[in-house]
C-alpha cells in the first residue's frame, strides 16, 4: 500500500505540470486583457504601460516559467521565512494583476470563509443524506422513498442561482428573518454573535447542502439496495439478529464503502468554493475570487487557484483509492 501511494504521488508530478501548462494556455490564449475593464477614459498609451508593468507583454513561455519559479521556489521560501524564521532571498512572489499583492495572501485570507460555509454545507448535506439514503432503500417505493427521490431530483436539477435567489426573496425580502448579504468581517465572540453567524450562514449552507444531499443520498440508497439482497443479509436475519443490527451494522457498513469514496472525491470541491452560491450570498470566498479573476483577466490568480484545485483533486483521488483499499479487504494494490 505504501509503495503504491508513493508511486502514485510521483506520477502526480508530471500530471500536475501538464495541467498547469494547459490552464496557462487556456487562460492566455483566450482573449483576456487585464486592462479591459478599466474606464475608457484611460488612454491606450497608459494601458500599454500598465500591461508592461504587469509583464503581460513578455513571451508566453517566459511568463509560464516565471510563474512556475515563483510557485515552486519563491512561495515555499517565503513561507519558510515566515514560519521557521529563516532568511532566504525569496525574489518576487506570485502577484495578482488586480490587487497587485501576493495571490497566496488573498487565498489564505479567504480560506476560512469558504471552509466555514462550504465545509459546513458538505457536512450538513452528508448528515441529512445518510438517514434519507438508509430509509429510502429499506422502505423502497414507500411514500418516504418517493419524497426522498423528489427532493433529490430538485437538488440535482435546480441550480443555486435560482434556489439561492428564491430563498433570499422569501426569507430576506418577504419575511425579513435572515440577512441576504454575508458579512465576512463578523467575528464570533459570544452567544449573540454566534446567533448572527448562524443566521447569515443558514441560507448559503442549506442551498449547497441540498445538492450534496441529493447526490449522496442517491448513492447510498443504490448501494444499500445492492447489499440488502445479498446472501449474508439473509444469513444474519436467519441467525436471529434484530432488524436494527442487520440494517445499521451489517448492511450499512458494507454499503458505505463506495459512498465514502464519493465523499472523499467531493472534498476538493469544498476548497474550490461554490462559485455561484458565493456570488449570490456575497460570501466572497475562493469561488468568488476565481470568477472575478477570470473576468478581470488576472492570469496569476486564476493560474494559482486552479493549480491548487488540481493538486487537491489529484490528492483526494489518491485518498479515495487508498480508503477503498483500507475499507474493503478484498481490494489490494500491491
Amino acid at each position, binding site marked *: 500500500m505504501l509503495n503504491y501511494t508513493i508511486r502514485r504521488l510521483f506520477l502526480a508530478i508530471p500530471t500536475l505540470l501538464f495541467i498547469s501548462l494547459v490552464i496557462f494556455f487556456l487562460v492566455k490564449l483566450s482573449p483576456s486583457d487585464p486592462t479591459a475593464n478599466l474606464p475608457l477614459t484611460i488612454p491606450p498609451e497608459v494601458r500599454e504601460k500598465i500591461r508592461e508593468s504587469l509583464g503581460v507583454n513578455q513571451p508566453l513561455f517566459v511568463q509560464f516559467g516565471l510563474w512556475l519559479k515563483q510557485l515552486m521556489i519563491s512561495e515555499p521560501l517565503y513561507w519558510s521565512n515566515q514560519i521557521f524564521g529563516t532568511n532566504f532571498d525569496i525574489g518576487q512572489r506570485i502577484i495578482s494583476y*488586480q490587487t497587485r499583492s501576493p495571490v497566496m495572501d488573498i487565498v489564505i485570507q479567504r480560506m476560512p470563509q469558504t471552509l466555514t460555509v462550504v465545509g459546513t454545507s458538505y457536512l450538513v448535506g452528508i448528515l441529512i443524506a445518510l438517514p434519507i439514503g438508509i430509509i429510502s432503500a429499506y422502505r423502497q417505493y414507500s411514500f418516504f422513498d418517493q419524497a426522498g427521490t423528489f427532493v433529490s431530483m430538485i437538488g440535482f436539477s435546480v441550480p443555486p442561482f435560482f434556489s439561492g*435567489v428564491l430563498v433570499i426573496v422569501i426569507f430576506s425580502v418577504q419575511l425579513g428573518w435572515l440577512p441576504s448579504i454575508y458579512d465576512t468581517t463578523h467575528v464570533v465572540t459570544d452567544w449573540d454573535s454566534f446567533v448572527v453567524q448562524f443566521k447569515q450562514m443558514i441560507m448559503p449552507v442549506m442551498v449547497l447542502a441540498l445538492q450534496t444531499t441529493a447526490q449522496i443520498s442517491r448513492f447510498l440508497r443504490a448501494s444499500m439496495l445492492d447489499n440488502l439482497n445479498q446472501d449474508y443479509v439473509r444469513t444474519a436475519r436467519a441467525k436471529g439478529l434484530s432488524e436494527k443490527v442487520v440494517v445499521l451494522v451489517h448492511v450499512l457498513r458494507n454499503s458505505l464503502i463506495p459512498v465514502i469514496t464519493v465523499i472523499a472525491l467531493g472534498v476538493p470541491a469544498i476548497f474550490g468554493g461554490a462559485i455561484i452560491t458565493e456570488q449570490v450570498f456575497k460570501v*466572497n470566498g475562493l469561488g468568488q475570487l476565481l470568477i472575478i479573476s477570470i473576468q478581470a483577466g488576472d492570469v496569476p490568480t486564476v493560474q494559482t487557484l486552479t493549480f491548487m484545485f488540481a493538486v487537491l483533486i489529484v490528492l483526494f483521488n489518491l485518498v479515495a483509492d487508498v480508503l477503498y483499499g483500507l475499507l474493503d479487504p478484498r481490494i489490494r494494490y500491491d
Partner: protein
Amino acid sequence: MRKLKTLLLASAAVAVASGAAFADGHEKRGRDGEVKIIYWQAPSTLNPYLSGGTKEVESASLVLESLARFDNTGKMTPWLAAEVPTVENGGVAADLTSITWKLKEGVKWSDGSALTANDAVFTWKYCTDPAGGCAQLSYFDGVKNVEAVDDLTIKITFNGPKPFPYTALVGSESPIIQAAQFADCTGAKAPECTDANFGPIGTGPFVVDQFKPNDVIQFSANEQYREPGKPAFGKVLFKGGGDAASAARSVLETGEFDYAWNLQIDPKLLASMEAKGLGTVQTAFGTSVERLHLNQTDPSASLGDARSTTDKAHPFLTDSAVGQALSMAIDRALLVEVGYGAGGQVTCNVLPAPAAYASTANDGCKTQDLEGAKKVLDDAGWKPGADGVRAKDGVRLSVLYQTSTNAVRQDSQALIKQWWSEIGVETELRNIDASVFFGGDPASPDTFQKFYADIEMYTNNFSGVDPEAYMANWRCAEIPGPKSQWQGANIQRFCDPAYDALVDKMSGTAALEDRAALAKEMNDTIMRSYSIIPLIHRGGVSAHANTLGGVKISDWDTELWNIADWHRVK
C-alpha cells in the same frame, strides 16, 4: 414584523436626531454609528494609481484627497487647496505655462504628521515613474515639473501653455499620497508595498481599519480630520461582491445597507423595489453618452488588411443623408423607457454636459420622425428595391450593427433594427463579450477599435469637466489603424480639416466662454456629419436608504465625494 422594525428604526433615528439637534454644528465626530455601503464590484486595492477602475478610485476617495474636487454640479471646489488658482487671482501664470496651488493651513495626515507641498511633488514622481505602470498617468500629461516653493506652495510647470491646468492632483483620480509612506514604493517596487497600497494614510474623513481585497473594507472616522464634528459616521462598512440587482435589493427591499452604487438594472424592477419605501434611487448625470458610431471607412472583409482603414471610404455611411435618416428613425425616448428608466435621458449631443458646453442646435432629434427619414433618403436618391431595402447605384443600405453583450444593449439593438427596417435599411445584429470588445487586443478582430462592422454602439465619457482632450479624440490623426496597432480614439474614422483647426484653436484659448463656444461648434460639426449618432445621456444610478442624509450624488467626481457630510436622519 417589517412595520415594527421600520418603526423601531424610525424612533431610534428620532432619538439620535433630537440628541444632536441642540449643538451648533460641532456635534461629536462619529455620533451616527456605522454606515454600510455596497459596491457590487469590489475594490481590489486602495491605491488608485495602481488600478484605474472606478471602484478603486471611489473607495480610496474616503481616505485620499486632492487639491480640488468637483461638486455635484460639476463646479470646481478647493479641497486641500485654500482656493482654486486662476489667471485673475495670479495663481495661473499669464502665459498659461504654470499653476501655483496654496495648501490649506494645518491639514494633517491621519498619522498626525503635517501635509506639505513635498507630498504633492512625491505624488507626481510616484505616478510618472516609468517602471510603475501608473494608471492615472494621463493626469500628469504635459507636466514638466512639480516643485515645492515652500511647505504650503506647489508650483506645477507645463511643457507649453495649458489653458485648462486643473488636471494634475485635481479630482478623485489623482489624489495626493503621503511621501513618507510610499517613499520606498516607487517604480517597479510599487506592487511590493501591499500594506501601503491596502491601507494608504490619507487626509480624508476616514482611515482604513481593515482591507480585504475584492471583498470588504472597514473604515473608521479620522480623528485628525480638519473639520470638527465631521464625519458624522464613526464607521464605514464598504462591502463588495454580488450583482447590481442584489445590491439594489439590500438597500431598497431589505434595508441591510445604506448606499448601493451603479444600479444599472431593469428600470421596472428598480422602480418596484423603490416602491417599498425604504430607500431612494438617485441619478447623477455626467458626460456619459450611449452613441452609435457610423464607420466612415469600408469594413468589407474582402479588403483584407485594409478593412476599416482610411484606404477606402465607406460605400454609403459617408453620405450624411443616410446618417441623418438613421438618426431620425430612432425613438430615443422609448429606448430610455425600455432600458434606462431614471438612469438615462434623451440627448442629441455627443457632448451633453457640463451645461455651459451643451449645444442646443441639434435638439430636433428628440422626437422620432419616420416619414421625415424616408423623405431624406428619397431626396438623396436611395430608392426602395424589390425586397424593401433601399439602394442607389447598386449599393444596398444593409448594415452590420455590433455592440457589447449586455441585456439593455441587445434590447436597444432590436428596437433600432425594427425602426431602420421601416425606413428601408437592412440590419444585421451582433454582440461581443465586453471584455473582448473593449479589450483592445490588436490580434482580435472583434474590438471596438478595429470596428469590423458598419455601426457600433457603446458609451464613452470623459472625466473631470473640461472637454478639450475628449473633443480632440476626433482629429484625423487619432484614427486607429494597423500602423498604430489600432490605437486611437477616433473610432468612427471621422476626418475634417476644419474640425482639426477647431481643436488647435481650443488648445490655445483660455477664456471659459470662448472654450465653451468652441466645444459647442465641434460638437455640432460632428453631429452634422452624422458619423456619431448620440442616443442616451446616461447617468450613474445609485440608491440610498431614506435614513441616510446628506447624499449628493455626483458624476463629476466620486459619488462619495461628500461622505464627510453624510448623516442619519429620521
